[in-house]
């Protein structure tokens, strides 16, 4: 018997040896290498929902790193927390021929806290490893096993992670009890998943092979439209004792109601204060404004989150005593304040971020697609939206971080998908007047007065609200596109409102703005607002062009130059109207004054690849006109 056992061991040992040849680079199909820095040789992911309390997630991934640029994918980082445990972590490194170089030792796995930059404290941690190999190409293989102690959030299958990343094989298996309703939403995967039954569980299987690299281009659509991926979401779920169902937005909202239940009690001193602040005021809108200002003056944003604390707010009384909280806690506090004043409001879950984030949202697929919370206050005439984490934002204004998108209102009846305020061409304005004077040496002094509205005021608002006065001066002194300049004075006036507006007055000296050489003077009339792009028309493009934001800029300038000059090369006036935007720039000289007028209206929209030529012309025309130089020559008289 002993001999037999030994034999088996010897045999299997040899067997393992032979199998050690894995992922030789020579086996990668040629078409996958083109433009690739990384080839995913195989990625096998399995999400196994054991019960509503527990799921096991197994991932095996092998990536061939072809060159230095692929190195950023060569490591493995696993995030974990109170609700996710890491139960397995292995790795191997192979050379180009597919021979095993070495395996990771468990002591090489790093482990550290991963408290995010915006957060004071949370429970997120990472385990990480990297072979730091550099003889290209090479292959890393990792196997990771995690245990999820909740079923609120499911992973997403996203085989093609980035540009220059080809996929030889990738699969995802979702395993759940027979009676569990598995919900998914597939993109660029037309056929249904393969379904099999294994005992008490049913499995759903997706798989792709041989996907060459895709490239992001100017005005690309969403990445998820360009590649295969599948979203998953729970029907029934459970998290730290709370249960819910995400099959509809309505049901999903009911879970949020539970999380907020009983969190709205306020201490007596705050109740008295509310009473005092609103006494004698009958207009509800005015009341909201006053109470929102009270919130802004007495709280600040601090993120502290453990476990379900990433979804559930602190109690209103906590915020009342500490004076801080995160978006949920502050929204809940404001909700409680309004409630105490007899005003109904709703929490609103939102996916905050640049405007492109807004389109990231999949309306028809109820699930946790949110990273932020605001408050929505329905009033008789309109709805007021409140960004409770900001100490400076106007009551009722959302801006580019939260405007122009969907939000999930949490009502007593459950969730309801609504639109946040829209800011478009009529709202997002920058209107500027420049009164400038150029002396005989070409030095320019100007008064610049600008009115910013809508999302065009967001950046200015953050500049003046987040910086001390000397810091504002410093930033202004750096970021203008002028060779050398001095900000002599500056003034800002913020008018709060549903559509806030900022008036800016600058006085700037620009030494040698105009180039005086000999008898000539060279001037670029557009001093501060040069836009456009240099684009070449890509005839091979297959993707639509997508433009996100809408805005309107108007610049009126009067530039006085020394007497005795006459225009040598005139300005080419231009006026273009396109489906992407309108642009016009005109210039005339009256006496020794240059009068320049520019209007740019940028539209949002989606355009087919065939529009490429017109789009390139549009951007190039603006680019050119905005930089046109005019030349004056001293009169011969």
């Amino acid at each position, binding site marked *: 018997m002993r001999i037999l056992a030994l034999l088996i061991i010897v045999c299997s040992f040899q067997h393992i040896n032979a199998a050690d040849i894995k992922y030789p680079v020579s086996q990668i199909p040629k078409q996958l290498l083109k433009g690739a820095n990384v080839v995913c040789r195989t990625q096998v992911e399995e999400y196994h929902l054991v019960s509503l309390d527990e799921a096991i997630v197994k991932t095996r991934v092998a990536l061939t790193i072809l060159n*230095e*640029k692929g190195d950023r994918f060569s490591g493995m980082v696993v995030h974990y927390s109170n609700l996710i445990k890491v139960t397995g972590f292995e790795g191997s490194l192979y050379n180009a021929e597919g021979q095993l170089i*070495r395996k990771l030792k468990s002591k090489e796995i*790093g*482990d*550290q*806290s991963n*408290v995010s930059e915006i957060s*004071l*404290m949370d429970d997120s941690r990472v385990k990480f490893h*990297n072979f*730091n*190999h*550099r*003889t290209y190409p090479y292959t890393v293989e990792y196997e990771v096993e995690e245990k999820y102690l909740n079923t609120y959030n499911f992973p997403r299958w996203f085989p093609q992670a980035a540009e220059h990343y080809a996929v030889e094989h990738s699969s995802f298996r979702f395993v759940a009890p027979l009676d569990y309703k598995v919900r998914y939403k597939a993109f660029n995967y037309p056929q249904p998943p393969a379904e099999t039954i294994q005992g008490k569980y049913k499995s759903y299987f997706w798989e792709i092979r041989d996907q060459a690299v895709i490239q992001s281009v100017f005005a690309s659509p969403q990445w998820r439209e360009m590649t295969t991926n599948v979203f998953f979401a729970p029907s029934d779920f459970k998290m730290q004792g709370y249960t819910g169902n995400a099959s509809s937005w309505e049901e999903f909202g009911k879970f949020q109601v539970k999380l907020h239940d009983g969190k709205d009690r306020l201490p007596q001193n705050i109740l008295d204060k509310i009473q005092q602040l609103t006494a004698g005021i009958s207009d509800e809108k005015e009341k909201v404004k006053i109470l929102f200002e009270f919130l802004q*003056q*007495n709280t*600040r944003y*601090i993120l*502290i989150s453990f476990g379900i604390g990433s979804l559930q707010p602190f109690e209103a009384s906590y915020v009342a*005593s*500490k*004076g*801080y909280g995160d978006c949920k806690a502050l929204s809940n506090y404001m909700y409680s304040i309004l409630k105490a004043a007899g005003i109904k409001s709703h929490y609103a879950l939102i996916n905050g971020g640049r405007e492109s984030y807004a389109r990231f949202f999949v309306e028809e697929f109820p699930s946790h697609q949110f990273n932020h919370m605001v408050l929505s206050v329905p009033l008789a005439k309109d709805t007021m939206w409140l960004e409770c984490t900001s*100490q*400076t934002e106007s009551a009722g204004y959302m801006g580019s971080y939260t405007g122009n998108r969907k939000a999930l209102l949490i009502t007593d009846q459950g969730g309801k998908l609504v639109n946040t305020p829209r800011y478009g061409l009529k709202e997002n304005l920058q209107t500027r007047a420049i009164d400038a004077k150029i002396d005989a040496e*070409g030095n320019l002094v100007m008064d610049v007065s600008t009115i910013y509205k809508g999302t065009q005021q967001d950046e200015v608002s953050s500049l003046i*609200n*987040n*910086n*001390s*006065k*000397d810091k504002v001066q*410093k930033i202004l*002194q*750096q970021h203008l596109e*002028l*060779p*050398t300049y*001095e900000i002599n004075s500056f003034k800002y006036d913020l008018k709060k409102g549903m559509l806030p507006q900022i008036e800016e007055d600058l006085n700037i000296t620009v*030494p*040698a703005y105009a*180039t005086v*050489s*000999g*008898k*000539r003077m*060279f001037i670029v009339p557009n001093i501060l607002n040069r836009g456009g792009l*240099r684009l070449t028309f890509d005839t091979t493009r297959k993707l639509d062009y997508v433009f996100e934001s809408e805005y309107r800029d108007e610049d009126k300038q009067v530039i006085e130059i020394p007497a005795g000059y006459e225009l*040598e*090369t005139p300005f080419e006036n231009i006026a273009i109207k396109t489906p992407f935007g309108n642009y016009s720039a005109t210039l005339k000289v009256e006496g020794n004054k240059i009068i320049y007028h520019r209007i740019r209206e940028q539209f949002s929209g989606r355009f087919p690849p065939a529009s490429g030529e017109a789009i390139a012309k549009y951007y*190039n025309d603006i*680019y*050119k006109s905005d*930089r046109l*130089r005019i*030349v004056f020559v001293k009169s011969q008289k």
Partner: protein
Amino acid sequence: MRTLFTLLCSVLLLQAFSQNEAPFPKFGKITVNDLEKKLYPLDSHAKAVVLQDVGSVSIEGNSKGWFSLVISRHKIVHIINKNGYSLADVEIPLYKSGNNAEERISAIKGSTYNLVNGKLEETKMDKSNLFTENVNKNKMVKKFTMPNVKEGSIIEYEYKVTSDFIRQLDPWIFQEEVPVLWSEFTFSLPGFFTYAPLMRGYLPLSFADRKERTNYFSVRDGGGAGQSQNYNFSAPVTDLRWVMKDVPALHTESFTSSILNHISRMEFQMMAQGHPLNNVNFQKSWFDLTKMLMESEDFGAGLKTKSWVSDDIKPLFASISNEEEKAKKIFGYVRDNYTSIGNSGIGMTEPLKNIIKNKKGAVSDLNLLLAGLLRYHGLDASPVILSTTGNGFVWEAYPNLKGFNYVVVLLKINGKDIYLDASKPQLGYNYILPYCYNGMARVIGDDFREISLNANTLQETSQTMVIIANDEKGKLVGKVRHTPGLYESYQARNKIKDKGAEAFFKEIEKEYGPEVVIQNTSVDSLKHYDLPVTIQYDIDLNLEKDNLLYVNPMFNEGWKKNPFTSLKRSYPVEMPYMVDETFLLTLEVPAGYEVDELPKQLMLKIDEDGSGFFEYRISHSGSTISFRSRLKMNKAFFMPEEYDTLREFMTIVVKKHNEQIVFKKKK
């Protein structure tokens, strides 16, 4: 009578003394008056003002048979507006090492004071405001955030840290990004330890004083398996106190090596211990330190022994007889075959054997491997330890290894000094990056010596040649040949590696403006890291044939923006190297045109001391225009008093680089 006199005297004394006393000697002394103050003349724009920051450190016996530092801190900040809220979040890093040495925090106390209806309202910090982040096995961070903070709040907190790392006392920093009205540090130094305090930065102390007293010390020795023992003794103690009042805020400007070099602070270095302890002199000479490093396992090991040189390496360089050729081969071998996992100070992170096996290591590992291999092959190579610019200066007067954070190699061949850094994949032979040029560096080897790596000796020379003529169709076309300095070459190589040559040239084309097209692009010496790259391409100006043509003779090579944006400067300008840029153009007058106007020539010196000059020469003969621009700096450091001159000088450079040649159509 006598009593009255004494009383008067003590009142006077008290008054004289109180001027030198911190404004809030005890916790909880904030008044309504303090809260009502809205404006501080020191800085009327500040987002917050530190009313006082008082620290003290004493040395006490511990139960581990030795001594600990006990560091106390008491800080009070007036939050003026919302931008100052971040000062209400406090993080205190605490370290521990494997051998039972650690840092502990205790006695954390904090309050926020607000003015509510003319009355002072105090909100105390409680346990729920305190958090502990276990970063990794050697580090944790204690965090707290003050409750109830609003515009106009005053926050006050204090805490105590007990540290077993008595040789690593953190510097006391007087200056912050907000103004500080009173910054004070007291060091209660027992007679049996000697520390050297080192004042850094440009601001003077308001005053310093010292008091002598006697203190009682008790040290308990756990004794391991045996019985524990107590040692009790008294020893003289000196209370050294340093105070800086009305410290302005410090902001980082462009061309700053490290703000650490300029911030006002007091550093401490432990020098010796003495009676009643054993006499030990910690103050090592540079000679001692060099010897110690050479003998240590994690630095000098590979330089002295040979057993780590594995059999697969031995034959690689055996056949090369020329010394320099051999050195280049060995350098290339380490650079091209080993991965750098980043910089982690001067010590090795793993034994050389493992480095060779895994083919990866930190900067120190790779460069010590390089030094070892060079020596193994009979070459005169030594590691050099230095402090990179971001890490601050090291000072010659107090020999100490703590300030160094980077290792390169110095090789001597035929009387030449060759500097090598094998940890950067595309860095050439005999070139180390500008961030290594930060003053004193030390050669570690059989002998010891100091070298100075000074940016005032590092030249970055670039040359651009452009030839433009009419083609057969009368269009202006030409060739550009740009040979940058070694640093710009290194950056160009990295850029081409990251983004590809196509994107690299696209960017260049973009800088020329909308009409210009560049083609037939090439980069020479891309893989010859010892040489600068040469970037070449053909250029098509696509000028529109108007009555007048305007051409900037610098094309896109000129300075477009003055790098000195700030109007004033409170500390030196530290450029990474001395710039020497030459631009040459030969331009044929466009067919059918004649020269109407040329920019004026100019020769400009920064000053009479020869700090640098700018030359702008242009001439016209027959159908050819010759142009030359040269900007040369003879030093990289400029003092604050030279700033105005430097800024003005660059303004003129930018202006000249914008000027145009004018051609007009022949009639």
